């Protein structure tokens, strides 16, 4: 398989705090990789380093063999190809749903309005929000907003999609509608790197599970294997926190 995203010996510090240490990772085209780990282990930071929202201290991130981080003089070009959806709703509140979707394609890719609107409507329809195109973000529920955020990222036709706990701030009944959209993307063979706390979702969607602990990838395994017999004691303990017994 052809590797799209490659991370080599990446380390990241915040002042004296080592947040990521010697991260090595290669993601193939069409692969869905899920990152799990306890709070504060560095999952968000890992995603943010990939698209250059954070500088890194050592190593490098490559997209299609080209350096993204560090020291890319054409960072905006690389970011076009790396879509990201955040945990907190980050739609542009002064723009309608449709305008949110077409802003970057028109400004960044210089696509015509007609062309951008056509595609936006197709994608909004696919996530069941076509009829809300003229609403403002404040008029949408959390789950709807996240679906629009996914559409907005897809509009750039990115080679890799990064999801950072996109359902963590949602009411339980809205989680499903967002995860279904992401499952649909997996069926379309989108390359994705997903951080989530939804273990059953992770099990269902992942081609590969990475377990991040204290800034290091300590397991990189097949989902079945990871969830039934994790290799490390640390992962066993982590998985136990999702089980309830009386």
């Amino acid at each position, binding site marked *: 398989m052809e590797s799209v995203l490659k991370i080599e010996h990446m380390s990241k510090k915040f002042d004296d705090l080592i947040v990521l240490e010697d991260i090595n990772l290669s993601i193939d085209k069409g692969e869905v990789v899920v990152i799990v780990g306890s709070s504060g282990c560095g999952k968000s930071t890992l995603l943010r380093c990939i*698209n250059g*929202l954070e500088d890194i201290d050592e190593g490098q991130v490559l997209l299609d063999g080209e350096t993204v981080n560090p020291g890319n003089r054409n960072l*905006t*070009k690389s*970011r*076009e*190809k*790396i*879509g*990201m959806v*955040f945990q*907190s709703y*980050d*739609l*542009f*509140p*002064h723009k309608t749903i449709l305008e949110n979707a077409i*802003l*970057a394609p028109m*400004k*960044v*890719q210089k696509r015509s309005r007609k062309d951008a609107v056509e595609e936006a409507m197709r994608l909004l329809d696919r996530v069941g929000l076509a009829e809300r195109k003229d609403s*403002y973000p*404040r*008029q949408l529920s959390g789950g709807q907003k996240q679906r629009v*955020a996914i559409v*907005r*990222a897809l509009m*750039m036709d990115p080679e890799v999609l990064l999801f950072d706990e996109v359902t963590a701030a949602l009411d339980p009944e809205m989680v499903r509608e967002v995860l279904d959209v992401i499952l649909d993307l997996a069926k379309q063979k989108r390359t994705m790197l997903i951080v989530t706390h939804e273990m059953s979702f992770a099990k269902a969607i992942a081609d590969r599970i990475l377990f991040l602990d204290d800034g290091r990838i300590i397991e990189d395994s097949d989902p079945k294997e990871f969830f039934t017999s994790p290799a490390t004691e640390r992962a066993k303990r982590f998985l136990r926190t999702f089980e309830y017994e009386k």
Partner: protein
Amino acid sequence: MDPEIIREYIPIFTQAFILTVKIGWIGIALAFLIGVLCAFTTYFKIPVAAAAVRCYVELFRNTPLLVQLFFIYYGLPAVGIRISAEVCGAIGLGLLGGSYMTESIRSGLEAIPVIQTESALSLGMTNGQLFRDVILPQAFTISVPGIVANVIFLLKETSVFSAISLMDLMFTAKDLIGLYYNTMESLFLLVIFYVIMLLPVSLAGTLIEKKVRYRMFGD
């Protein structure tokens, strides 16, 4: 109150009104320009300039307009720069207003959450596109109530122009009272003309606030 006297005074007050409004709005335009420049300077943390802006803002926000006008009107000629009372009024108002506008616009810019910047950047937008299409329109929405309040405040501040011998509304009223003792009529017209000057601005301000706020906040 003698209606005859009021009728007689109206043209005099109208002239003073026009002068006051003209200088007032030139000053406000200047204030807005200064405010935008200074707020951007602060927002982008431009070295040295940002510190200079800070000093300017604190100096002008914490001194009365009257004192500022005295400095410009009597101070500048002392160092050989001669300007008319009208120019002095507009500049004084512009400098005072600039310090207030800077704060209103800056606080709007700084109220935009970092996530907005990050999501725009992760869509591949340049810093310019991010600022123009994402930050600025949102910041403006937040700044509007402050800007409107400043405009009203500055229009009221025009009443100190009389201290530098500008034939504004205040000066005219004082003058007429001093000369003919028609106190009631003069005060009546003074109030009326100030209300005429300010009421439309207040109403328009409320309308604009509603309109721009609606999109983002829905109230």
